[in-house]
């Protein structure tokens, strides 16, 4: 029983972090119908920037995260404004390929700059654990989980209550109408992508604090974001949170009860089943899954 509880706690903590990894991906997909294959590369880039700030300036990763977010916001804004906006009206292969090219570029660039070795951001406190009734709760993971949930909730509030957030949502619902209301779609798209990469960067720094990473991990993060975004569904900011927690639990329980790497097969099985029976995701809105183009 303790083993099961331990697995559950671990799954929830991991799930919260996965949710933050995926929330930007889900946002970009929901607002501009672009599946961003370079998302994982931005996560890893965030991890490396956090690591660099920590090792050369001695900045605590949970503070350095803010700097990382600012840098990645600027990069993301520029990428969308000057590159992805050029093809955003094209068929889906086009945006998939463009972001895939971007992924190759980023991952290889990081391979050259940071080498392919595994790195991790070490802090004096992240390894400590709180013990509650025989269940270990690692401090670093708990902190990452709380921050991830906090950031997601903050994002939901920003989206629902500010002019910027509302213009992003409006553009996602009907771009033509939004433009008639005086919203600059180019700017809004770039803003959305910038927010997504900033969130990816913060998630990356936290991933680096609780585990190891290298440039080759980018593809895995993209795939996970894919799965989580679909599980949760688009059009609801909490979708990524639901999907992430579910994914974390499935992985933790699968790892506890199944042998070998069956757990990975399980994750994709869950994905395909959800797609078959509820293509709009667990909490998503059907509108976003029914449309074929913006």
């Amino acid at each position, binding site marked *: 029983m303790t083993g099961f509880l331990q697995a559950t706690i671990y799954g929830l903590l991991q799930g919260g972090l996965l949710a933050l990894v995926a929330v930007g991906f889900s946002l970009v997909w929901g607002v501009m119908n672009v599946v961003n294959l370079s998302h994982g590369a931005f996560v890893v880039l965030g991890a490396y920037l956090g690591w660099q700030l920590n090792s050369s300036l001695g900045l605590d990763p949970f503070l350095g995260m803010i700097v990382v977010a600012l840098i990645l916001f600027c990069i993301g804004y520029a990428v969308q404004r000057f590159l992805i*906006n050029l093809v*955003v*009206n*094209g068929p889906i292969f*086009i945006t998939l*390929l463009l972001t895939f090219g971007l992924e190759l570029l980023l991952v290889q660039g990081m391979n050259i700059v940071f080498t392919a070795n595994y790195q991790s951001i070490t802090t004096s406190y992240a390894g400590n654990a709180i013990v509650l009734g025989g269940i270990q709760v690692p401090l670093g993971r708990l902190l990452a989980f709380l921050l991830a949930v906090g950031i997601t909730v903050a994002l939901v509030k920003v989206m629902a209550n500010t002019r910027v957030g509302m213009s992003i949502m409006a553009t996602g619902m009907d771009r033509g109408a939004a433009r008639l209301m005086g919203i600059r779609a180019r700017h809004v798209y770039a803003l959305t992508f910038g927010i997504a990469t900033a969130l990816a960067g913060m998630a990356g720094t936290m991933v680096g604090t609780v585990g190891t990473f290298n440039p080759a991990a980018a593809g895995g993060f993209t795939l996970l974001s*894919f799965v989580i975004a679909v599980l949760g569904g688009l059009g609801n900011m909490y979708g990524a949170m639901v999907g992430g927690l579910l994914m974390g639990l499935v992985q933790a329980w699968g790892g506890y009860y199944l042998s070998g790497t*069956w757990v990975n097969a399980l994750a994709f099985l869950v994905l395909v089943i959800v*797609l078959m029976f509820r293509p709009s995701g667990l909490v998503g809105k059907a509108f976003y899954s029914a449309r074929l183009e913006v």
Partner: protein
Amino acid sequence: MAAVIPAPWRRWLPWALGVLGVLAALGLQTQLYSGQVRTVATIFMFVALALSWNLIGGYTGYASFGQVVFFGLGGYFAAVTMTHLHWSFWLALPLAGLAAAAYAALIGVPLLRLRGHYFAIATLGVAEGTREIVINLDGLTGGGGGITVPTVGAAAATKYLGNDGFYLVYLVLAVLALLVTGLVSRSKFGFAMRAIHQDEDAAAAVGINTTRTKVLTYALSGLLTGLVGATYAFQQVTIYPERLFDVEITVLMVVMVVIGGSGTVLGPIIGAVALQFLSEWLRQNYTTVHTLLLGAIIIIAVVLLPQGLVNYLREARRNRDYSLLANVRRYRL
């Protein structure tokens, strides 16, 4: 407006060009040294793969992002039957193709109900899931440690074909894929595929059995991909799930088709030859940064020629407007 009935030369010209191409490929083989034969064989392999993806992705418009599952399945079918049942490669090859086609039909029935990104992701999920199953059936497939096909001695039913042998097999597969594409694109079935691509609901309304067309196309595409996978497995001798189910193989197929021109017969061939040639050249001359340059080239190609080279030339000739700048504007926000 093009003539409704094509001029006689338009009918036999593609065949003549095809025969010339095959003769040229056979002639080329005698002029290359061993390493180059292998490189060119890989180009043929990608021509066959790109053409088979083009059937489902280009003509029918269903972006199968898990196409590599048929490649891996064909490869593992051949490797397992040749290792455990001591089948000859010539028996394993066609059956591997059929196994992949059957799998495509099986997953196609539920998955092809999904559209757009959702189909892409579901196929990706199936590919990743299938890979995990192959890894975990380690008694049969050798798991993550891989499986080695016997190529010499008494255990080998078929002796290793060597670089020249595989060159011919891949050439035959590429020609087969080309023939299938050429015949399908001019048939009623091909029109049904294009109709589904343009507007699936309208296609159903004019009496096309969309489900049957889609599943058959997917099976055909899976068959060709499976044949290539089986050949690849024998060529590699030892195969690993990570390599045979590598997402990058799918992505390469898609890149080749899109750059060349999706939904055309010539496009995937041009795309496959150009990209593979370029990639090999970059690998030899700029070893450290070759993937970086490849990424940059993909980005530039997608921005400048989003509809692919063949479609661009076709439209440009019709409109007498060869400006690339106008081309960039078409999908811009």
